[in-house]
Each structure stands twice: as C-alpha cells, then as structure tokens.
C-alpha cells in the first residue's frame, strides 16, 4: 500500500490491515456486495417487488432462459412467482445488509451509551444495567429473538428490534469494562480535576478508547445478525414474503433443492455465504490489527 511510508496511526492501521491478502479480497468482496445492494434499483434487471413486472408463466425458469415477453434474460433463473432471481438476490442483499447494519448500529449506540453510563456512573445504575446485560447474555441470541418475534409477529421493524435486543448487551459490557479501565487512569482524574463536564469526558476521552474492541465486536455482530435473520426467516418468523431477504429466498427455495430446481436456493445461499464470510473475515482482520490481545470468537 502506498500509505506504508507515512506514519499516522491511520496509515499504520491501514498498512497492517491490508497486509493480509485474504483481508484485501474479503474487503473488496464486501465493498462490491454493499455497492451492489445500494445500487440494486439501478442495476437489477427487474424490480422484484413490483408485482406487475412478474409473470407467473415465467416461474421456475432455469438460469439463462428468456422471459416470455422476450425482453429479459434470467441470468440466475426465476423463482416460483416468476421473479428474476438475480434481481431478487440484489434486493434481498439490500434488505439483509440493511437489517444487519441497522440493527448493529442501533444496538451499538444503545449498548455503548448504557455501558459508558454504567462504567462512568458506577453504583446502583451500573449494577442494574450490568445485571440485566448479564442475564440477557446468559441466553442464546436465537432464543431471545425467537421469543420476541413469536410474540410480536413478523416484519422488518420487528426483526430489527429483536436483533437489537439480542446484541446490545455485548456492547454494553465491553464499553463498561473499557470505561472502567479508562476511569482508573490518571488523565481521567486530571480531566475531572480540570472541571470538564462528565459528558465531555465521556465523549472526548472514554469513547475513543472504547472504540477498537467495539468495532471488532460490531463487525462480527453484523455477520451474525444477518445469519440470525436468515435462520429466523427459515423458521417462518422473519420477514414478509413479498420483500424477501436472502434468508427468506433460501428458505423459499429450500423445498426445491431435492427436485433439481437448485437455483432458487443456491444462488441466494451463495450470496449469503459470501456476505457473511466476507464480513467475518474483515472482522477477523480488524481484530488482529486493532487489538491483538482480544481473543476468542
């Protein structure tokens, strides 16, 4: 990388980050997928949500077949509604990535705020927040999401809420322990001694020091949020059918797998796999670079 010679922390980070070829590839794949997801309405051959564009007579066409009106080649085939799979995957990717990132971002914000408050304030507030977080962390995410969704019914908003509920405690705990470490340090006392407001101390001093581990966890959580959403959709508790995410596309095509109509499930599966694997690899590299001592998953 060209930045190797300069010596700002960012340059050092970038250099270290891009020293692994797998990380470079994963980052590129992720960027590409994200770009494709963002630009889905522009690049997709069909708007898969516009019912007037679908034709039931084009259902379950193999990849490469031409639509009955002759205007479109279905590069990845069609599903049982005659929906172009390529378009459906692009739009599905959009939803999956949006759900993954939105829920993670929101959970990060909530968890960070609560964790910092806990770490900074201490006392009863701390023990209340952390007790709730601990209890929640002792339950597997899928169980919590399952119960919440079963009780609230399906929908994009609801699945995002469920995913936030599943994630926030991780960030809260990490943020708190980082805050605790920082709180003990001298500059914090100095900052307090200078009469800086607590908010300012938190924002200017605590936050930057909490961030690296949180970024790594967040990256991993985006991946797990996406696959959790897919699993919930498979169990019939996820998103509505008309605006399918990748997980729902796979589960729609699930029953076609044995009959040889593989493409309905296979291509979305591949897209999901690529997305989740790319995010995981990026997260992996981030962890190695940002904090070599952060162990575990």
């Amino acid at each position, binding site marked *: 990388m060209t930045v190797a010679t300069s010596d700002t922390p960012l340059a050092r980070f970038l250099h270290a980050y891009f020293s692994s070829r797998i990380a470079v590839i994963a980052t590129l794949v992720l960027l590409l997928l994200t770009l494709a997801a963002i630009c889905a309405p522009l690049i997709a051959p069909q708007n898969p949500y516009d*019912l007037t564009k679908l034709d*039931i007579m084009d259902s379950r066409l193999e990849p490469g077949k031409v639509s009955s009106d002759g205007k479109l080649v279905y590069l990845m085939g069609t599903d049982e*509604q005659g929906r172009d799979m390529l378009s459906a995957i692009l739009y599905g990717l959009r939803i999956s990535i949006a759900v993954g990132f939105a829920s993670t971002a929101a959970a990060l914000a909530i968890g960070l705020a609560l964790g910092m408050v806990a770490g900074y304030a201490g006392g009863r507030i701390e023990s209340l927040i952390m007790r709730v977080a601990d209890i929640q962390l002792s339950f597997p995410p899928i169980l919590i999401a399952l119960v919440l969704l079963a009780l609230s019914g399906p929908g994009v908003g609801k699945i995002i809420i469920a995913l936030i509920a599943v994630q926030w405690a991780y960030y809260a705990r990490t943020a708190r322990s980082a805050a605790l470490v920082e709180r003990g340090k001298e500059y914090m006392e100095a900052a307090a001694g200078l009469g800086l407001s607590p908010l300012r101390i938190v924002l200017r001093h605590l936050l930057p020091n909490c961030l690296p581990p949180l970024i790594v966890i967040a990256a991993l959580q985006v991946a797990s949020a996406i696959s959790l959403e897919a699993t919930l959709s498979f169990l*019939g508790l996820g998103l509505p059918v008309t605006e399918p995410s990748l997980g729902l596309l796979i589960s729609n095509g699930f029953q076609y797998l044995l*009959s040889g109509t593989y493409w309905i499930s296979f291509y979305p599966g591949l897209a999901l796999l690529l997305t989740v694997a790319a995010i995981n690899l990026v997260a992996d590299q981030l962890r190695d670079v940002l904090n070599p001592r952060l162990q575990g998953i």
Partner: protein
Amino acid sequence: MRKPESGATYIITGFGARAPHISGNFMHKTARNLRIALFAAGLLAMSAAAAADLKIGLSADVSSLDPHYLNIAPNINLSSHLFDTLVLVDPNGKLVPGLATSWRTVDDTTWEFKLRRGVKFHDGSELTADDVLFSLERPATLTASPGPFTSYTRQIVDKKAVDPYTVQLKTATPYGPLPLDMSSIFIVSKKAAQNAATEDFNSGRALVGTGPFKFASFARGDRVVLTRNDQYWGGKSAWDKVTFRIITASAPRLAALLAGDVDMIETVPTADLAKLKADAKFTLEQKISWRTIFWHVDQQAHRSPFVTDKAGKPLDKNPLADVRVRQAMSKAIDRKAMAARTMEGLALPASNIVSPGIFGYNDALKVEAYDPDGAKKLLAEAGYPDGFGLTLHGPNNRYINDERIVQTVAQFFSRIGIQTKVQTLPLSVYFSKARAGEFSVALLGWGTLAGDFGLRTLVGTPNPDTGWGTWNWGRYSNPQVDALVKSALSSVDQVKREGYAKQAAALALKEEAVIPLHHQYASWAMRRGLSYPGRVDEFTFAHQVRPQ
C-alpha cells in the same frame, strides 16, 4: 356382513339416492380387494419378512391419541386406524357402513342405526349399543379440549339403545346431516374408556378400539407404531406392522422417502412432483381433495381496514361491497395458470365451495374465465377505473403453497390496476385476526363433505345464537341464501337436501360471496410396488395401502 334390510330402510350416502346400493357394492369390492391384498401380502411375506412392515411419513404431528380430545386432521387420521365410526367415509367422500350396517329415519327427528354384529374390540369383548351410547356422550365430558368433537353430537337431544344392536338418536329439529356427523365420532370400548383420562389413551392403556390396527407404541413428535388386528371385521390388513413417522418439514419428508427410510409419504411438496413422476422407483397418487381454497372478501359497506386509494389513504367507502368489484377480481385471476404454475398441477380451478363429487356440488356453476379486460371494465363501471390499493392476507404454511397463492393473486390484481400488497402470517396470528375482521381480503381453505354445512359456516349470516357464519370472515349476508341452507339442513330427504344446497351455492357464488380459487389435490408418493387409492379427505390410511 349382511345385506342391508330392505323395506323402509334406505342407505344414506353423501350422494343420497344416486347410489342406493353403494353399500352392497362396497362390500363386494372390498372383499375382492381384500382377497387380492391377502394373496399379495402372503407372497411378500414369503419373500421377505420385512415386506409386511409399512413405514409412512406423515406431515403433521399427532398431538393426542385420545380419539375424542381434539378435532384435528392428524389425530383423526391416527384414530381411524385404531377405531371405527358408525358411518365410514370411502376414499371418494361417500358415506358407507361402518360399525353401523344401515341407518334410517324413524320419524323426522329420530334416526336409527343398526349395529354390525360380532364386531370384537382389541381386548376381545364384543361391540354393543352401550359402547356406542358411551362414545357419543364422551366428547361433551372432555371440557379441557380446545377443539372438541361436540359439534357432531350437539344435535342429539336424546339417545337410547333399542336392543344391543340398535341405537336410536333423537334431534330437536329435523336434521339431515346426522349420518355425516356420525362419521366423525369414534366408537371406543366403554369398559376400557369409562374411567380413563386422556393420559391413559396416550399411554395406550385405554386405546381399545375395533379398528384394523392395534396400538404398539407412541413416541411423541417422532413416531407411532401399530400392529395388525387379525380379528378386524373388515378383513385383515396387508401389514403386520405400521410405523408412522412424523416429519413435518416437507423437504426432509421427501428425503426420507428418497433415502428409503419410509415407504410412503403424504403431502408431497409440489416442487418435487415432476421429478417423482419421472422416477420409476416411485409411484405418485393424486386425488382432488375436499379442500377448496377461496378468498373471503370484506363486504361491509363502511371503511375496510386494508382498502386504500392508490396513494395509501384509507377509502371511506368499501369498494369490495360492490358485487361488480368482486366479479372484476374474480375475472382477473387466471386460475388455469395458477393451477399449472403456482400449484404445479396440484389444483383444479374452482367454481364451488365444495369439491366435485362432494354432496352439494353444483356443476351448473362454471369456473370464472380469465378476462382482465372484462375485469377492468367492471371496475370502471363500479367507479374505480384506476383501481385502488389493497392488501391481501393469507396464512403461511397452512394450505398447499398458500403463501405463493397469495402472491400470485396479487400479481393478477395488480394487472387490472388494483395496487396490491401481500401479508402472510403464521396461523397463530392469522386466524385470530381474521376472525376479528381485521382483514379486507383473506385466504381460507375449507374441507367439508356436505355443501350445506360449508355454506352455513362460511357464508351464512353470522349469528351466535344459531351458530351460523362462524367462519364468515367477509360477513356476507343474504337472507335468501340463509333460508335455502336452512331448508337443506332440515331435510332428511337427501335428494331434496342436496337440491336446496345447490340452489344456495348458486345464489351465493353468483354474488361472489367468496371468490373461489381452486380445489387442491392431495398427494401421496410411495415406493414402487405399493398402491393407495387416494382419499378426498386427504387422510392417509395404512389399511388402504396395498402391495401390488
């Protein structure tokens, strides 16, 4: 197996007088089939001992072995192997003699059932009128049941045993469908069941019936094992041992068949029909089911919850209340394309609310032809030349491809300018909301063996006092239809009864009280060498599976 008595006795079937001697025919045919079956079974038994074992993959879980506890298909399916009913239903949905060899009306409100003589329970005791009376009383005692069988006994106001082989049942008003009701109540042994709780049935202790199989073991959620009842009055089954495996997910169920773990499965995923048809190792059986899939359409005049203008603003007037709009919607649906593509052949376009061959089917009604231009014209006439906005609701995973049906219909509606959205919900949410009238257009599937029954429940004016219209989500109401259905139900003459039912159906469907889509096909797949007649009621009965 005696010939029915002549004279005042007439044999009642779903088709009434159209097949007056069906019982005799049935006997004859059954006997021949049984001989063939026994012969084949003998051959197979010689070649391989395991051949007399049958493993069947079921699509739904058996929740209780108590035959009177919960009125749901999987439980009834299983109980049908262990128990008999007074009146049996043949594969085509016709009523045939079961534990009762014949039945007749003594007067307008009294029915008499003659019991089959010499029928033995699994414990060796003989069936008598006492057991029948006990069995008819038992459903009402199971107060903990959320889905009791009391619907089939509530018409009976009095019952008595004339002699050990004759039972008389009295109804408050003339009631034609009583024999049909009697096809739903399993006859249990009074001795075994009178002090038994539901748990005793689940453990097998109280499971003493007269059916073709005896209970062997039950692993909840996994399998039920039955062994042959050699004393069965209807002839021995071809199978020594029958194992029902419960595999609710469709792909794994099919995989179990392909892998040879089961010999036969029910409810074949539509996706795999073509492949199975082409595979010489398997045989596919399809049968038009009694289940009709249709739309309930909100017909209240005021604002409907999911009807909007094209911008999404609620409409004050409900366009769906206008019969022209409902006709337009019906014309917009290409039922043939949907049957071929969405259902992959597992559907027959529908014009009735009951399947062809079922009592009360009106073949004068024709399937609405696909006519998008006509539909647009009708919409314009009704004052909606640009259509409106609508959300369709449907369950997911209740009926064959239900979620896809909703989407496909949304496609069709979109093409005539109705801007259509789709929401499918799990059953747990769906039924409650639908019942509360929270949908504008909602998908329902209904199976019944009598058209007047269906009409009463689906399009009869809802009234808690009479018990009508319990599933009339669209709140359609036409006093004429109500009157005709009422006449049908109170006709003990089955010809007259069917006549009224057909008239009522014609009237209701002309007004698009509901918009019928199709009758679904039930399907079974089995390894080569087995045959199954296919049942209109979708049940999977091991004793009707034959080695070829």
